[in-house]
């Protein structure tokens, strides 16, 4: 029974194929195609699996390895460069700090020295000033006694010329002293 149905299906399919003109639907060509498909595709699969893929992935992996190796090396070198750069910057920073320290110290020293010199000169000036003042005072005193003497002599001479008499010197001296006193007190006022 089953075979009859099968044969019926088979022949009807073949008839349909013949009518539609599609050789694909002719069941007589199915078996050889499937058989050869299995053989050829199986062969292709085996060759690709066992021969072609290992060869392809080999070269690709080798290249990837090479590239990643190079990248690693580049990274390493870049790291080293960065470390060097850091140390260089550190050195520069240190030098800058030192330089500013030195500048600061020198400034302090110079300021100190200047201050000292100023003080000393001021001291010398003061000393000189005092000496000069002393001199002036001395000279003032001397001049006063000189003025006294000159005044005494002059008045003595004048009186002698005018009267022909000699007046007691002591008297004249007292008068002159009084005049000078008066003058000095006026100056003070």
């Amino acid at each position, binding site marked *: 029974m089953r075979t009859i149905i099968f044969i019926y299906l088979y022949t009807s399919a073949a008839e349909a194929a013949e009518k539609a003109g599609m050789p*694909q639907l002719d069941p007589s060509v199915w078996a*050889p*195609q499937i058989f050869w498909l299995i053989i*050829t595709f199986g062969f*292709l699969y085996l060759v*690709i699996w066992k021969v072609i893929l290992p060869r392809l*992935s080999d*070269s690709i992996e*080798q290249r990837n390895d*090479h590239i990643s190796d190079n990248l690693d090396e580049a990274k390493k070198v870049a790291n080293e460069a960065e470390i060097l750069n850091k140390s260089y910057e550190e050195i520069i920073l240190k030098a800058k700090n030192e330089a500013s320290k030195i500048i600061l110290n020198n400034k302090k020293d110079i300021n100190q020295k200047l201050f000292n010199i100023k003080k000393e000169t001021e001291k010398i000036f003061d000393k000189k000033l005092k000496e000069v003042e002393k001199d002036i005072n001395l000279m003032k005193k001397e001049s006063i006694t000189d003025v006294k003497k000159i005044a005494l002599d002059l008045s003595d001479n004048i009186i002698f010329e005018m009267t022909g008499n000699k007046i007691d010197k002591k008297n004249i001296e007292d008068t002159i002293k009084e005049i000078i006193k008066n003058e000095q007190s006026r100056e003070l006022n």
Partner: protein
Amino acid sequence: MAANPMQQFKVKTIGPKIELGSFDISFTNSSLFMVLVVLSIVSFFIIATQNKSLIPNKLQLVAEMIYEFVAKMINETAGQDARPYFPFILSLFLFVLFSNMIGMIPYSFTITSHIVVTFALAIVIFFGVTVIGFLKHGIKYLELFVPKGVPKLLLPLIIVIEIISYLSRPISLSVRLFANMMAGHTMLKVFGGFVVSLGLVGGWLPLGFSVALTGLEILVAFLQAYVFAILTCIYLNDALHLHH
């Protein structure tokens, strides 16, 4: 030359008739082109990978591009777990691609324009994927037919639809490829016939069409190989990772 445009799909026996039991396994023009396809793939890749160098030559570059194209396709659709099936999918893609492309040569035979060939490939994929699914997930693989987040009331209907769609996978997969190849070649043949029958006077228009169609068919040849391979990857993904 009013040849039947279907004549090109005729399978003719070459050499003696061979029988294995009750099966006819004669060598035909179809078998000849299968052998040609396989030989051209194998020889291309063998030559391309002959002198493997760090900086690839043109052939090696093409071979590696194909390799990476398929590897990327598998990785993106089926993930890392699909790695063991890479040789099969690469063979499948190359076999279909080369069959389609060699079929574009005038007077040649297109293996993939035969439903029995595409269906045989599709049914192998179907059973393979189903077996992988059951091996990996056991009886839980049946959960594939029960989508998550579906109302309980609709579940029986959805399950039936899911089962039908699952079972129709090999049919849709094989018919898509076979129909595309057959339709394209038939069109080419019809327009080619017009060129001859209209002669020097009116044959130029269909000739132009033929040229344009040839370009289109080369695109389709590649596209269908790609679709065939990527659908296989998607089915594989379903089997490897339940509930995507």
